[in-house]
């Protein structure tokens, strides 16, 4: 049976351009610019300085804080400088500039393993941390933290998220088709570390091929003990958002400000599971990731394995340039992604897609009066009343906005998407969230 959650929207999929194309390696860039913050948590301190020689996969920055993740060189070469540089999420941040030597010499300090059973849970967790694995679905939460359950917490279910509900993006889909065995191995380790007794692999109904690929691997006797089940979900946005996913599969609701842990589960993206596999089995740190590079302006839309720190313009060149004038460049999907100011912006660990959209792709409308139709209420997966919150925020009535749970917003953008009056509801709610946060920290 196809499962889903109440609310959500059904935008056009727009995945056809890249859905059937094998993942290709992007050319190794001549220069990379690697930001010192690529994850949720504490920024890293550089371990290298101008003139340092680095190898691909060598740690170049780390933090001693628990919620953080080390950062690795993605090419071999020489550190030119450490300086502020455009950052796709936070505008700009300090970054390590590495000039490549063209050799792409790999760092080999992390040993490979053939038999993961010989490793203890702590050893696996250490490898995951050392390899800089973070959630690759977008939020980039450090994976070793997620896999270390707090004292007294236990979970029963692990959800592997292969729903990829954002339009345009196919990187997870391709990964499931091309590397199902690695994904399942990675998931097996994550199950072991979290102690979950069941696993659900969540896939949207438009990716049946991926479901079959994973099912085939799961049939192997070795995986019987995983107690894993593939769940087909309705193709609907934001199906892949943690709260929607857990609601769909387990019919549990993560409490406000809570975590999936609070309802006995952990959710992880398929790309993350594969990165865990590569780290433990191949000793490979997270210095590259699969990125869907698409949009009507790209001559050759593709899924590319891209080195972290590659500036966008290098990818444009690698894909045969641009066909027409770009109006917006978006990191991520069209629903939650961030529009970029510059072609110099580098790919980071959380970059799942880069969209080159023309003016026609990004239909813009004049805003009109709210007609109180309630469509925003119907689509909000968090049961909020976006139209009312918008009114409160406009009038700076933040107390009322709090009463209406403005802080619960998961920023999916369904309200703005659906609004016939084309009111940027999400933008108002986001502003409300920020103001409320300021109010609370001022107290």
């Amino acid at each position, binding site marked *: 049976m196809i499962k889903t959650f109440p609310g959500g929207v059904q935008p056009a999929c727009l995945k056809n351009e890249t859905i059937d194309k094998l993942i290709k390696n992007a050319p190794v860039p001549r220069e990379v610019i690697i930001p010192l913050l690529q994850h949720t948590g504490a920024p890293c301190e550089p371990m290298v300085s101008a003139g340092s020689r680095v190898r691909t996969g060598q740690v170049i920055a780390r933090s001693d804080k628990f919620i953080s993740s080390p950062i690795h060189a993605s090419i071999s070469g020489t550190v030119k400088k450490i300086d502020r540089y455009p950052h796709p999420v936070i505008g700009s941040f300090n970054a390590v500039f590495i000039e490549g030597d063209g050799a792409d010499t790999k760092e080999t300090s992390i040993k490979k393993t053939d038999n993961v059973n010989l490793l203890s849970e702590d050893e696996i967790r250490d490898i995951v941390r050392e390899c800089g694995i973070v959630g690759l679905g977008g939020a980039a939460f450090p994976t070793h933290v997620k896999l270390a359950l707090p004292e007294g917490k236990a979970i029963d279910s692990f959800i592997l998220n292969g729903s990829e509900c954002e339009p345009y993006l196919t990187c997870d889909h391709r990964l499931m088709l091309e590397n199902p065995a690695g994904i399942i191995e990675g998931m097996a380790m994550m199950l072991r570390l979290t102690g979950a007794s069941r696993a659900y692999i969540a896939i949207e109904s438009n990716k049946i091929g991926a479901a079959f690929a994973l099912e085939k691997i799961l049939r192997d006797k070795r995986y019987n003990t995983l107690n894993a089940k593939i769940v087909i979900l309705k193709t609907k946005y934001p199906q892949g958002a943690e709260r929607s996913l857990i609601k769909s599969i387990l019919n549990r609701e993560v409490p406000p400000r809570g975590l999936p842990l609070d309802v006995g589960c952990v959710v992880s993206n398929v790309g993350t599971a594969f990165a865990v596999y590569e780290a433990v089995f191949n000793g490979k740190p997270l210095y590259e990731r699969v990125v869907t590079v698409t949009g009507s302006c790209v001559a050759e839309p593709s899924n590319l394995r891209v080195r972290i720190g590659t500036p966008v313009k290098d990818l444009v060149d690698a894909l045969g340039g641009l066909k027409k004038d770009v109006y917006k460049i978006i990191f991520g999907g069209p629903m939650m992604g961030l*529009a970029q100011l510059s072609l110099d912006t580098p790919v980071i660990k959380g970059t799942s897609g880069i969209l080159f959209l023309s003016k026609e792709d990004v239909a813009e409308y004049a805003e009109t*009066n709210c007609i109180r139709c309630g469509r925003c209420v119907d689509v909000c997966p968090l049961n909020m009343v976006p139209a009312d919150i918008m009114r409160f925020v406009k009038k700076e009535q933040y107390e009322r906005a709090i009463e209406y749970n403005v802080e619960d917003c998961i920023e999916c953008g369904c309200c703005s998407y659906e609004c016939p009056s084309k009111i940027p509801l999400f933008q108002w709610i986001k502003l409300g969230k920020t103001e409320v946060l300021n109010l609370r920290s001022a107290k």
Partner: protein
Amino acid sequence: MNKDLTVSSSPHMLNKLTVPGVMWGVAISLVPVVISSVIFFNILAIRLMLTCVLSCVISEAAIQKLRGKKIAIKDGSAVVTGLLLAMVLPPALPVWTAVIGSIVAIGLGKQLFGGLGYNIFNPALLGRAFLMAAFPTLLTKWTSPFTLDAVTQATPLGLMKFSQIKTPYMDLFLGNTAGSLGETAALAILIGGGYLFIKRYAGWRIPLSFIVTASILGGALHAVNPSVFPNAAFHLLSGGLLLGAIFMATDPVTSPVTKKGRWIFGIGCGILVIVIRSWSGLPEGVMYSILLMNGITPLVNRYTKPRRFGAKR
């Protein structure tokens, strides 16, 4: 080329449906009703619809100009108000009365509150309520179908209430009865309503709860005393119940935004309509039931805030 990039908040793609899209969609859903009204009331129907639509659009433009606002008649909302107003007026209503009704609907019902989106009451129904108060005789002078004169003829509800005469169901279903221009033909209303819901121009919760509540309550009264109270089918097919439930009560601006609120709104309308039809001096109560529920909509919204996601049930 960097300077040409546009930076704005997500989402970067939007649903194509706009407010004018919704309004013109509603106008298209009214086409079956327009056609049936022309079949039954011929030139009277055309005259009334043209009068109401034109006066509504002109009033809207004139008031927007006076208020120094952008003239937004292209959004289709005044056209819909005009069409709906025509549908709830007697076919042979004099042109000047229809013009006054239209001016009141747009001026008092909508623009006085601040224009589209701000009004509390359904503008078309407010226009009709005004005419009903000001010109009660004209508003209760009904025409038989296929006759061009204002031959005084009672509506099926009137015949039932005051003379216990039952109009055949087939006439009620097809619309071959006296009544307001667009309320008589159940079939045409249902066809238009189907299109309205399939295209999602209006929600289904209000009409469903409205119709079901009226049927249950009407049916229960009929079971208690069949000689005084008509049965549920008669309630549904006669008067403006279907037109009101499908096209009036679903007006987005004047109905609740929350799902629970919409159920309450529909149930409230259903109860009020049967109460008015059964125990008031009037044969019909759809207009007042909807207007009353319009009035408490802000309150309904406030008390039907959806349960917070993840909060204890």
